[in-house]
């Protein structure tokens, strides 16, 4: 093979996803095939407390290594639960040059200004984005390239406690992961549902003992709230949506609730019935009972793998942008 030295080494097209979920760590490798990513291996490990996350991640990675020996360095880190807090700030301003298209620099400037003014004591911002916009009174999901004078940008910011972000830093250093993006998993999942064009909705990710509620207003994620109730303790669960929606503007009352199980073993029918029979009008002044749908699969990805699929779509978006 005289010309071997001249042959170009094939580019590594595999991509790594690490998801710190509600009750378990999942790591997965996707292989890029043309414009799509194909799941080629998954490793999972449950954890019971925040302290277990580090060791559980290493064990999940061990399980994955048994299936796919070469773990790619580049990857996306998805986080849920724990001390995750989110905030959506609406930035309103008038543009002096209304005929000039809105560019990346302009949105970044607004976002930076919002972030500078936030109270970041003991917290670290790990993700921020323009989640939605209103241009001259018209809602758009992405303002880039559009023109207008009166602008409202929904600036979505996600925090975690400093100690938890440090733990994740330690973890990615330990496993030599090159994190291209760190994102709340529920945010990524909601982007999949945006294709359904529902304006106001609720994503309810449910675990055995831990869950997460994501409020979608005017088609964009407004708030993500983790809490410590799940299918094992339904007695108090109605208080979770009461608490999450109590200050909601009634114009943004959800018309649809997506129930997404954190693992394939969980049966959500009982919770669906609880949501359907809940007195929305008398308790939360919501006139129409929202429709409740249990998510079973998206694009052939099962319930257990939907979050991974959502996270890897972020990579597709990165490449596309």
């Amino acid at each position, binding site marked *: 093979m005289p010309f071997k030295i001249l042959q170009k080494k094939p580019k590594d097209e595999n991509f790594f996803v690490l998801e710190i979920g509600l009750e378990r760590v999942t790591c997965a490798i996707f292989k890029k095939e043309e414009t799509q990513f194909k799941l080629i291996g998954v490793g999972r490990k449950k954890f019971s407390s925040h302290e277990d996350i580090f060791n559980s991640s290493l064990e999940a990675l061990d399980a994955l290594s048994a299936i796919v020996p070469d773990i790619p360095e580049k990857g996306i880190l998805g986080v849920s639960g*724990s001390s995750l807090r989110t905030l959506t700030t609406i930035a309103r301003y008038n543009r002096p040059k209304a005929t000039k298209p809105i560019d990346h620099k302009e949105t970044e400037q607004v976002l930076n200004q919002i972030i500078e003014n936030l109270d970041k004591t003991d917290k670290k911002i790990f993700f921020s984005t323009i989640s939605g916009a209103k241009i001259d009174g018209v809602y758009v999901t992405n303002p880039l390239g559009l023109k207008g004078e009166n602008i409202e940008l929904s600036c979505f910011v996600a925090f975690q406690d400093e100690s938890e972000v440090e733990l994740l830093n330690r973890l990615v250093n330990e496993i030599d992961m090159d994190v291209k993006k760190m994102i709340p998993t529920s945010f990524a999942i909601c982007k999949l549902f945006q294709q359904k064009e529902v304006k106001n909705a609720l994503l309810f990710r449910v675990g055995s003992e831990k869950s997460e509620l994501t409020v979608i207003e005017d088609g964009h994620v407004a708030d993500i709230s983790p809490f*410590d109730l799940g299918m094992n303790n339904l007695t*108090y669960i109605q208080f979770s949506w009461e608490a*999450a929606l109590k200050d909601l503007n009634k114009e943004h009352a959800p018309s649809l609730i997506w129930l997404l199980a954190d693992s394939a073993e969980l049966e959500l029918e009982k919770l669906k019935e609880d949501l359907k029979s809940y007195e929305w009008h008398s308790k939360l002044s919501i*006139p*129409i009972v929202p*429709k409740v749908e249990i998510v079973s699969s998206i694009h052939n990805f099962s319930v257990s793998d939907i979050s991974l699929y959502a996270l890897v779509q972020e990579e597709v978006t990165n490449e596309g942008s």
Partner: protein
Amino acid sequence: MKALKFDETNNLIDCLESIKNEEEAEIKIFTSGTEFLRKNLNREIIKLVAKTHNKVVSFDDTPKTPAVQKESLQEKTTAPAENLGFVEGKDIAEQAKEQPAPQQTPITDEPKKGFKLPPFKFPKGKWLYVAIGAFLAVFLVGGLLIYFLPSADVVLTTESNFKENEQTITASKSATKVDTSNGVIPLKILNISEEDNLTADSTGTKTTGTPATGRVEIVNRATSDKSFFQGTTIISVSNQALTFSLDSAVSVEASPDFCWVSNTCKKAGVDVTAKSIGDQGNLGVGTVFKVGDASTDLVLASSTANFAGGTSKKITVVSSDDQSKAKDTLLKSLEKKATSDLQNKNQGIIIPGGGLTPAIINETYSKAVGEEAQNFQLSLKVNFTASAFSEEDLKTVLISPMISSIPNGYEINKKNSKVTAEILEKNGDDLKISAKIKASLVPSLDQKEIKNRISGKSFASVDSYLRSLESVSGFDIKISPSAFRFFGILPLSKNKIKIEITQGT
């Protein structure tokens, strides 16, 4: 006030149960060192549960004292050392230097010596035998490969022929099986509930606003007293479309004769309000009005200042037509969904036209008729009762009278035949159905005979044979693996030939 403390072993449920069982109405919860109390929504849930039990909860976020923290840290750091088996003052590497135990002898018996073949020697000139053997082996393997490996898919295209039949049949709840002679099939009654929401635009308009108000002075030129009740109408002399009413009763004393000459006519002031909304009622000062039925020669009113406050605007409201259209649209969509869901749950059924009866269980509009809104939402829950029957049963009844009239050499392909049905009338539990079938006729080809005639034959002779079949209008043969096309014949084994009959368009 009761103070509650939790540690890392407790969870949200422990906290909620403690609050529920606590007798005191005011509770303070110390949050330091507890993971679940760091989540905002957990705290909100705690507050709501407490409120449900008529209790008030407050949170104390003061961190633990350093002494306590130090103690717990010490506990944490010493524990793992014990678990790892370290012993103070001893080197554990020096322990456990015991020799490994000798290997146990196996408890099973040694295997017995087996049967041996007698020695074999090739006769002289062995290479000749080897060459012949190899040739025979290659020949045998080649023969087996040619016989067993190639396969052929033969697709025969026949001309499309259809025959139609229309018949009135009866679908009966009491029938348990198909009765072809009387045209009766069993009827099934199925139920399903469907619900959905629909957002629709409002198209109704309504004018809203306020009426103009002002003050007039009523002049009495008559020589007798004049009284007017509250609500008496006054009409603008210059524009009789503008009417106002008196806000209160008023009386004007009698005036002396020819008072208008000496300007001594009696007057009384009173507030008035326009009878209709809009700015056309904002009249200027000095406007003259006719008062009630009184003659303007004797009594008249005139505005003492500009009238004001009259406004009007057009707004978009929900009309009853909007609600009705939205209901029709959503009902149609639910009917489609119900039909599809029923057919998915009950494979092979047909719901005839008019066989789906809706019963609305819940119908809620987010905005009432006349309410201002650009759009509104309708939520509908409908219970559908479907009269259905088996497609197979229907085909059996419709095909039965056609059999005698099918042309020779043809048979009906039930799978490709299409049926439609519509309810004509209901007779008690039975339905009179108008049913149609477009039966697909395919030539009755003897596949076994065809396989016998083409297996192992050359492409040319297969071509001429298939062309000779009258009912076959075309054919396509695929040999796999394709390398076997090289031999120019169809597989020798009949079992490796698959025949499929399709209809041309």
